[in-house]
């Protein structure tokens, strides 16, 4: 969301005062947030099960600021024929948006984080999607960070690629060069160099998935996913000025989403996403140590850090320090 410019700003013309304000405000009790992907659903023959958006019912909402809404964005690696909402989520980002200030934040959760899953003992956090679908995954991530998401948004990788292509690709700044022996997108067949990158769908997906050659593995991958999210948001924000862009995006999202949200609610969410102020986006990844449980490599997340991030961002969707 574009931040307001308070007070007059002197323009080049003498005597001209300019003021700008951009606000997106929530209506009734409905939050205004949606994973950016939902705005830009490609108008192709994608099955409705490519995307799942679930509103998390809440019995007690007293801790939720009326201006900040939280959504858990999940990238599913479900193969063709697999039920997307009962596989294992491969990418987990808890996204908060402040519809009053335009701030947004993303808290990355390593997918191999070993955590308690309500009703299922302890397991890797992404197993919650398999055990109980988006509701249980939302609850599990919420317990770790201390913020229960208002929505859980699940999409497949294939859909993600199409979405990136539909908005004309994204631009991001890659801090460290890396590659992968098995994941070789056509444009970056030899790996991703350091510096500014222009990624189309296949490259963006590869950039989001590669972890083996990253120095800090899943932690760095989660940070890369956040760079992609920033790139998507910036592109959507820029195109939102085009008349009809939001309406078209929401309509196609409605056609492909499996959700109980009303079209009007999706429209409000879509407008909110488009108005996030790119200069007010903060991101962090929950850190942890590497361990082995039951023969499997897992991340033992720093719960104190996760809670601190949650406490920091809960009310304003801003993280001051990772």
């Amino acid at each position, binding site marked *: 969301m574009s931040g307001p410019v308070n007070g007059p700003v002197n323009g080049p013309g003498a005597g001209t005062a300019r003021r700008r304000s951009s*606000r997106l405000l929530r209506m009734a009790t409905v939050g205004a947030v949606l994973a950016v992907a939902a705005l830009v659903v490609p108008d192709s023959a994608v099955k409705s099960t490519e995307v799942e958006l679930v509103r998390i019912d809440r019995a007690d909402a007293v801790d939720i600021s009326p201006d900040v809404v939280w959504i858990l964005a999940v990238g599913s690696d479900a193969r063709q024929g697999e039920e997307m909402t009962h596989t294992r989520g491969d990418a987990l980002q808890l996204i908060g948006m402040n519809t009053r200030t335009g701030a947004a934040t993303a808290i990355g959760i390593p997918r191999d984080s070993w955590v308690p899953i309500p009703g299922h003992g302890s397991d890797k956090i992404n197993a919650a999607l398999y055990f109980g679908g988006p509701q249980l995954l939302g609850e599990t991530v919420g317990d770790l960070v201390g913020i229960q998401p208002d929505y859980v948004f699940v999409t497949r990788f294939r859909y993600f690629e199409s979405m990136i292509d539909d908005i004309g690709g994204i631009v991001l700044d890659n801090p460290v060069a890396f590659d992968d022996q098995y994941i070789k997108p056509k444009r970056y067949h030899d790996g991703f160099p350091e510096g500014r990158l222009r990624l189309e769908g296949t490259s963006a997906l590869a950039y989001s998935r590669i972890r083996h050659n990253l120095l800090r593995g899943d932690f760095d991958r989660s940070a890369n996913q956040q760079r992609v999210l920033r790139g998507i948001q910036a592109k959507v924000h820029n195109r939102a000025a085009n008349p009809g862009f939001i309406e078209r995006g929401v309509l196609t999202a409605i056609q492909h989403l499996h959700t109980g949200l009303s079209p009007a609610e999706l429209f409000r969410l879509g407008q909110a996403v488009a108005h996030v102020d790119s200069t007010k986006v903060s991101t962090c990844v929950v850190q942890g140590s590497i361990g082995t449980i039951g023969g499997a490599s897992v991340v033992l997340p720093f719960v104190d850090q996760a809670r601190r991030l949650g406490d920091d961002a809960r009310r304003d969707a801003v993280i001051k320090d990772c």
Partner: protein
Amino acid sequence: MTLAVIGLATAGCTGSDDAEPDASPTSPSAASSSAAPAVTTRVSWGKGAGALPRTLRPRLVEDVQAVVDGWFDAAYLSGDYPRSSFVGSWKGFTPGAQAQARRDGDLMSNRDIGADITGVTPVSRAVTLDVLSVRKRPVGVTARVDLRFATTGTTAQRVHVAGQLYLTNGKQGWQVFGYDVRKAAQ
């Protein structure tokens, strides 16, 4: 003067309406100056998405225009200037949007200059509707607004208000839940 950025629609708008001008409903301006000529709001269709039967368009235009005109008039054009109170300028807004507009009162009304002017004369007023329709019903509207007026008094100037209002239809009818508005004075 500044203008809201109004670009071309992206390609492939599903079921979007043509950008044809609709029959321009008239709305008498409520300029405070009794001698001011009536300036009507020109309404046109923009780039929406989804099919909306033509039979439903007049009602939508009427409802949304009422909200927009209500804001134009109460916030900028009507009232006895000089004035300092702009309470009630945002009756067509949701409660949260009203509260925010109140905080942005210098922009979202004439609160910044109201005490220094003696009258307002409307020059032009227009709104373009980008409508989201689902199952042949309108569910969301981006109203691109453009209002120009001149003021008299200590702060005699030409003012241009432009931007977007975002509306959805609920129990209270069509209401503004968000906005992105610029105001320029010269």
